[in-house]
């Protein structure tokens, strides 16, 4: 694969994120450690300054800078050893002193060192930066000297700190590697979890594209994949249905064409050989067959428009009486077959809003269907009822009814309940399919209710504005 896979991307992201997290945590820890150390040192020095500042100010106010050096050394080299060496006012508080390695430096107002517990810098200008803890000593509110304290703790601790930081860095690196490996493992596992259903889906789509329409996914994995799988199966099912439908349609059509073509061929050959007289009657028979064929083609056209949802409707408002006028041939045909036919109208209906020709076709198809399924002496009723925002049409007959197992199929094209019925009697089996298409194109509903032995009612509704 030219592009890196989803699994790789997930794994890489996992590793990057976790390593970054480790490094970020370590950096924060480092910073905090540094701050903690410096705060500690600072605090310690402040305490020392607090102790020493009053003593030295005190000395300063009495004697000035003279002898300060000796005084400091006396007080810092071993407790009590230098006590009384020099008389002075007051004495060092008990327990005072400086720790091993600690150093006090006092500078005067001109920044010259006047005292140094290590005695190294006396008389030199101080090059002490302000980073060292220091305090200004005031005598009579005049700044007279500055006390610096240089703590060995600082350097001691800083080497400790450096050690700590070094260890932390090593640990961080190790941790980053360990976490990275864990991330790699997790990422690969998750990547597989995501990519394996996708791979299954992909191969299923390929199968489908190659015409294996019965290919289905087994539903497993996470919710999203379950949903995806379900949608895929739904799509595959629809495709399968459409394909089966198409195959059946082709088979149905060729079957429907075969019978009239056989008839035409037989008749024409008979005429050629002279076995069928070439008279008006046989020509009329041929012509009738051709008219039927033309009609079949026209119906198939309508059906294909309906099935492609390409019916272009021509809505208008027209009087109910006009519709009924066009249904007069039905009256005559029913009379002729000895069927009692009645129309039951809601007297409030004066006008209908619909595609006139399509509505007429729906009614003709339903009435013809009813007419074909009742015996002589039977009954067919057309009724139209007004509801709040739609009209409901019903075509009822008292024929033999439709067995429940056949009910769901009656609107399918070429569907005939009784296979033994021939084409002449049973119609072509397109009427109801076209009726349904026309009703649905006008946003109506069509359904059938039937009880075997009692008859059948076809209902449909048409929304009215």
């Amino acid at each position: 694969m030219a592009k890196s896979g989803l699994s790789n991307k997930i794994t890489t992201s996992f590793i990057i994120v976790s390593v970054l997290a480790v490094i970020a945590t370590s950096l924060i820890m480092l910073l905090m450690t540094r701050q903690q150390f410096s705060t500690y040192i600072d605090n310690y020095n402040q305490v020392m300054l607090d102790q020493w500042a009053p003593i030295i100010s005190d000395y300063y106010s009495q004697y000035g800078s003279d002898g300060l050096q000796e005084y400091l050394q006396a007080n810092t080299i071993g407790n009590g050893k230098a006590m009384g060496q020099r008389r002075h006012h007051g004495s060092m508080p008990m327990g005072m002193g400086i720790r091993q390695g600690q150093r006090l430096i006092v500078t005067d107002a001109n920044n010259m060192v006047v005292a140094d517990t290590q005695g190294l810098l006396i008389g030199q200008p101080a090059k002490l930066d302000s980073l060292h803890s220091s305090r200004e000593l005031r005598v009579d509110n005049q700044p007279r000297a500055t006390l610096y304290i240089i703590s060995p703790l600082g350097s001691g601790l800083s080497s400790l700190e450096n050690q700590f930081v070094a260890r932390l860095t090593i640990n961080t690196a190790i941790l980053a590697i360990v976490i990275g490996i864990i991330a790699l493992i997790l990422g690969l596992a998750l990547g597989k979890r995501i990519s394996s259903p996708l791979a299954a889906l992909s191969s299923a789509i390929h199968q489908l594209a190659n015409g294996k329409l019965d290919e289905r996914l087994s539903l497993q994995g996470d919710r999203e994949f379950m949903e995806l799988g379900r949608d895929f199966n739904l799509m595959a099912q629809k495709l399968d249905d459409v394909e089966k439908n198409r195959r059946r349609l082709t088979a149905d059509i060729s079957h429907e064409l075969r019978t009239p073509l056989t008839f035409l061929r037989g008749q024409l050959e008979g005429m050629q050989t002279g076995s069928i007289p070439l008279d008006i009657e046989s020509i009329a028979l041929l012509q009738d067959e051709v008219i039927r064929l033309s009609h079949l083609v026209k119906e198939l056209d309508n059906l294909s428009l309906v099935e492609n949802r390409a019916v272009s409707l021509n809505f208008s408002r027209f009087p109910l009486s006009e519709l009924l006028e066009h249904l007069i041939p039905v009256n005559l045909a029913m009379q002729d077959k000895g069927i009692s036919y009645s129309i039951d109208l809601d007297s409030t209906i004066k006008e209908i809003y619909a595609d006139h020709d399509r509505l007429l076709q729906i009614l003709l198809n339903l009435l013809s269907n009813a007419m074909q399924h009742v015996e002589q002496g039977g009954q067919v009723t057309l009724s139209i009822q007004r509801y709040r925002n739609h009209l409901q049409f019903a075509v009822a007959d008292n024929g033999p009814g439709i067995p429940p197992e056949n009910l769901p199929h009656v609107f399918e094209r070429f569907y005939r309940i009784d296979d033994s019925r021939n084409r002449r009697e049973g119609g072509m089996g397109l009427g109801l399919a076209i009726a349904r298409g026309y009703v649905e194109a006008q946003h109506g509903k069509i359904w059938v209710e039937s009880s075997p032995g009692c008859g059948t009612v076809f209902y449909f509704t048409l929304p009215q504005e």
Partner: protein
Amino acid sequence: MDSLILLVEDEKKIRDMLSQNLRQEGFGVALAADGLEALRVWQDIKPDLIVLDLMLPGLSGWEVLKRIRQKDNTPIIVLTARADEVDKLLGLELGADDYITKPFSPRELALRIKAVLRRSRPHEQVTNISFPNLSINPERLEALIEDTPLALTPTEFKILLLLAENPGQVFSRLHILDRVFGDIYEGYERTIDTHISNLRHKIEATGKSKVSIKTVYGIGYKLVAEE
């Protein structure tokens, strides 16, 4: 009438069949097998009407229709094989004067041609059909026996017109249904009997008719002149 018709159709079988039929109906017929030829012939002969198949090789019928309409208003009747083309025709209003879907009866095409020509020549005398003393004016939906008008329903009028246009020819019930209603088929053949019987009564009621509708047993009906 001697109108000149340009027939544009790529299927030779259909072209020959239609031209033969149209000549028999008294039209002069020029032929074209594709769109370019159609445009050329149309410019050469300036026909009175064009019968144009939509599905042509090369330049399509649609294109031919458009190009002719850019120039003038020669009446055009379109032949189409597909129901969706009819929708397109109606939707676009490209200027076809009429259309007829395949399969169709050549006689019906001839009737449509006559109707379109009539419309395009408003001042011309409408051809009345007369058969001995029955005369029919298809425009005014009027049928007379001598001078007595027949009070016919639209269906009865259409049946009588069909029979009178082809006197002596036998029409089966299905054929009559096909031509009169265009849509109602199986199971309704017998309704024609009722219409015919009403027609007969109305014709006989005038008392002076020299035509009658004969039943041809096992087939259908024909209009004949009484001896």
